[in-house]
């Protein structure tokens, strides 16, 4: 019984226990204990994080000649670590005052279901991460899709339900694409196991690889929410009930990235992907995927800029940062991939912290709408501090960890000589900085409203996970080496040269990065600034918010002297016209096309003798399959090759 078995079995048993005990009050404490134990089990496998051998689970199933087995290697250990840590913090967050309020507002049953959804999500993610071959990968993939659908569908109101339905439609389409790709791989390489598939890939010609890569990319891209398929993610994650959004926002979309790295980078190999030329464009497949990542960085971030609700702004950022990771991974050299993978960890920490602060604000003021908030910094100072730490991370500004992974990606783009991709990434970062300040300003700064004067700080049970995450963000920012060790091990697992690093950062002959020095100098600068400020200047007096310059006007609470709606008016004058939500129109067009086709076939089917019609179709299908050298039009020339083997 290897450690992996214990982990998977323990999580399965725990989920059964939680399903059974979901109505009891102690369920929240119980779930916290479950996640702590799961993390302990994972840490027992921590040798993987430092270059250890893959841990195989003893449980195998052979199905029509194929052996399904489950194993953990460095990459899946890295993702599993993030999943379990985020799940632990979410459980901590849900166990305290937030949970009681959720029980009072909704019902004990709803709270229980939320806990169940969380444990099922964690279980399905572990199964996906532990997958040893393509079939178990698909099983895990399906489990994850359905588990996150369950989490989203818990929110009773209409918008959430519609978003959940839209998600599951996208997910099913993605799953079909992946199933198609797996079937074709099996056809071409004769086996499903990663190792044989890898060897089998060598004989395939470029067009077959092109079909495979595009199908896998579409399947995994839908889950990651890359640019053509990004419409479902923001509403779905924003509308999941508070604590659920914390977990979903942080890690659930990254499963797509895991599978993408596993299949495209490890099995097919980026060199093969780069060899495929896309006709009529000077791009190759790898550049095309990198551009998809770059576009996903820009467009959702600027949509986030226009949002008027904190949860939606954060959810759109989730989509944007996903683009960063894809961009990082798609740069073939070691620094870029390290940047992409490390960004998963960094992003999970500050996105979870941000969602927690927004949920804390909702818990205290009842709304996350920017036009109803303002000036909460004096009422909720600790929540404000956590939000500032995480927005510095999200914007990628030095002392925090977000900066390290962005630096890696920029450095890789610089070395790789991709000017336009570099500029696209920078436009994305600047858009993040702008929308992140809008988030902090509209909720915490500016004039305090009359009705929020007696709002109190978030309860302790919510503060502890928030402060914990803030400390993690700062610690991994100052000493990125800790995370870089795991990332290097993961790179070895997927067959890419690991990035050479030390505790402070990266050594490079053409200019490296040492975060300990950078942070040290920054805090030296802050110390000098504080000395200048506190010792050279005289005493200053704190004054009331109505004692303000208003051009000679006497400020009272009757006049709301606060600027928050239409925050970047100047910028919006210029780029306002560019938001023509073309993707939403594209989606409507697709939806109407499908409904039109189904209508067509429906009344075609209802026309005369339906039975005769069905028989004819079945006969045609049989004939088509039987004919060995079927002259029927083949979907693609690649499939033809496979059939003839």
């Amino acid at each position, binding site marked *: 019984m290897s450690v992996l078995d214990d982990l998977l079995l323990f999580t399965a048993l725990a989920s059964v226990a939680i399903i059974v005990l979901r109505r009891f009050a102690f369920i929240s404490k119980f779930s916290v204990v479950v996640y702590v134990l799961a993390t302990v089990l994972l840490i027992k496998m921590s040798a993987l994080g430092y270059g250890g051998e893959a841990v195989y689970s003893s449980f195998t199933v052979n199905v029509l000649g194929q052996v399904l087995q489950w194993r953990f290697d460095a990459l899946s250990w890295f993702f599993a670590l993030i999943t379990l840590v985020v799940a632990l913090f979410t459980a901590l967050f849900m166990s305290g005052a937030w949970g009681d309020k959720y029980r009072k507002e909704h019902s004990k049953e709803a709270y229980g279901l939320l806990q169940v959804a969380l444990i099922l999500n964690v279980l399905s993610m572990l199964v996906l991460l532990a997958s040893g071959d393509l079939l178990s990968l698909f099983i895990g993939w399906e489990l994850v899709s359905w588990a996150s659908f369950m989490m989203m569908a818990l929110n009773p109101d209409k918008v959430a339900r519609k978003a959940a339905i839209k998600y599951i439609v996208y997910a099913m389409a993605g799953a079909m694409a992946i199933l198609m790709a797996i079937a074709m791989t099996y056809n071409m390489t004769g086996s499903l196991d990663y190792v044989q598939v890898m060897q089998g890939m060598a004989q395939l010609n470029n067009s077959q690889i092109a079909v495979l890569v595009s199908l896998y990319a579409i399947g995994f891209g839908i889950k990651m929410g890359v640019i053509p398929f990004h419409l479902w993610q923001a509403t779905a994650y924003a509308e999941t009930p508070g604590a659920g959004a914390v977990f979903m926002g942080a890690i659930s979309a990254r499963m797509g990235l895991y599978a993408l790295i596993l299949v495209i980078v490890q099995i097919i190999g980026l060199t093969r992907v780069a060899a495929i030329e896309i006709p009529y464009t000077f791009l190759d497949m790898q550049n095309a995927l990198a551009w998809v990542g770059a576009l996903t960085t820009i467009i959702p971030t600027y949509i986030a800029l226009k949002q008027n609700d904190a949860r939606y702004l954060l959810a759109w950022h989730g989509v944007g940062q996903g683009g960063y990771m894809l961009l990082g991974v798609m740069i073939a050299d070691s620094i870029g991939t390290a940047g992409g993978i490390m960004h998963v960890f960094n992003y999970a920490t500050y996105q979870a912290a941000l969602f927690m602060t927004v949920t804390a604000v909702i818990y205290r003021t009842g709304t996350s709408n920017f036009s109803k908030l303002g000036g909460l910094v004096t009422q909720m100072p600790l929540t404000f501090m956590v939000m500032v730490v995480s927005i510095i991370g999200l914007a990628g500004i030095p002392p925090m960890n977000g*900066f390290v992974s962005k630096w890696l990606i920029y450095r890789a783009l610089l070395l790789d000589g991709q000017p336009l991709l570099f500029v696209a990434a920078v436009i994305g970062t600047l858009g993040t900085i702008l929308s992140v300040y809008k988030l902090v300003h509209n909720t915490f700064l*500016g004039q305090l409203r009359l009705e929020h004067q007696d709002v109190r700080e978030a309860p302790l049970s919510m503060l502890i996970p928030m402060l914990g995450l803030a400390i993690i963000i700062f610690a991994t920012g100052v000493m990125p080496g800790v995370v870089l060790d795991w990332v290097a091990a993961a790179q070895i697992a997927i067959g890419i040269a690991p990035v050479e690093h030390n505790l402070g950062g990266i050594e490079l002959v*053409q200019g490296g990065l040492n975060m300990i020095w*950078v942070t040290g100098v920054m805090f030296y600068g802050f110390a000098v600034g504080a000395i200048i400020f506190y010792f050279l200047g005289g005493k200053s007096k704190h004054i009331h918010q109505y004692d303000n310059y208003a051009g000679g006007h006497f400020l009272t609470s009757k006049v709301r002297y606060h600027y928050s709606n239409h925050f970047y008016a100047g910028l919006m004058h210029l780029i306002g016209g560019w938001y023509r939500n073309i993707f939403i129109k594209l989606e409507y067009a697709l939806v109407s096309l499908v409904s039109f086709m189904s209508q067509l076939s429906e009344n075609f089917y209802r026309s005369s003798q339906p039975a005769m019609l069905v028989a004819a179709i079945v006969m045609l299908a049989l004939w088509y399959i039987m004919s060995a050298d079927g002259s029927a039009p083949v979907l693609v020339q690649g499939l033809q090759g496979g059939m003839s083997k």
Partner: protein
Amino acid sequence: MTSVTELLAELLLMPFIAFVVGLAMVLMYRKIAARLQRRIGPPLLQPIYDIVKLYGKETQISHGLIHDIGLVMAVGGYVAAEIFLPVPGMDGIADKGGIITLSYVLMVPSLGLALGVGQCANPNGSIGISRALTAMLAYDIPFIIVVFGVATHYQSTSLVGMIEYQQIHQWGIFEMPLLAVAGLFALQGMMGKQPFEIYVAPAEIATGPMVEMSGKYMGGLFVMQTFQLYTAGVLYTSLFLGGGANWFEFLVKIFIVVAIPMSVALVFPRYRTEDMVRIMWKWPVMVALIGIAFVL
């Protein structure tokens, strides 16, 4: 790696030099402004008088702790940024973090100031900050393209490496003239002077972010302005004019580099926010992209 004591000396000396040279630059700016308007202009030590008077104020108002911390972050961020800038004789820790780190450390002061002004709870300040961040978005894109071109040309992102490269070969400005021009344009935006001064528009939003700053807060912003001018000058010099072999040549270069945008600034009126973004995304970006085409 320079010895620890030498590093400590640099930690103290570099910001101080930056402050003194910055004061001279502020004086130059006001003198140029006066001369252009056919006036005599302020006496020689006027910037120092202003700063000492502001710090000598008896009463100051503050809107809360974040207002204070915001200002400390603003001045401290620039002090930290000075240490990344190599000057003749002192390299600070320019090789620990390259030009990308520097351009991100330069964002720390504007973020700190933004948080501080946010707590001033004055809409003039918030409008000023939203315009300042839009301006940053505007001038940062051509600046980053220039940085990309320069980094690929010198094959290194650390300023020290770039300066050595330029000492051996010619100056950057001769090898990448187009990038130099685009860099100057971006510098104009970065210095926040007249044509792109939308976020400190005294007539419309009562000096934007500085609306609630009195006494030592205003003094802190004056100090920050000196650092801003100094950083812009030194950055451009080390990218395109080959840093300084000795102090005199270095100072001459910085003052010329800073004088050009200043004199351009004083003859232009203020652009609206969207016009600024449009201009910054159109001309310097075009020039820089063509410049990169040559570099690649």
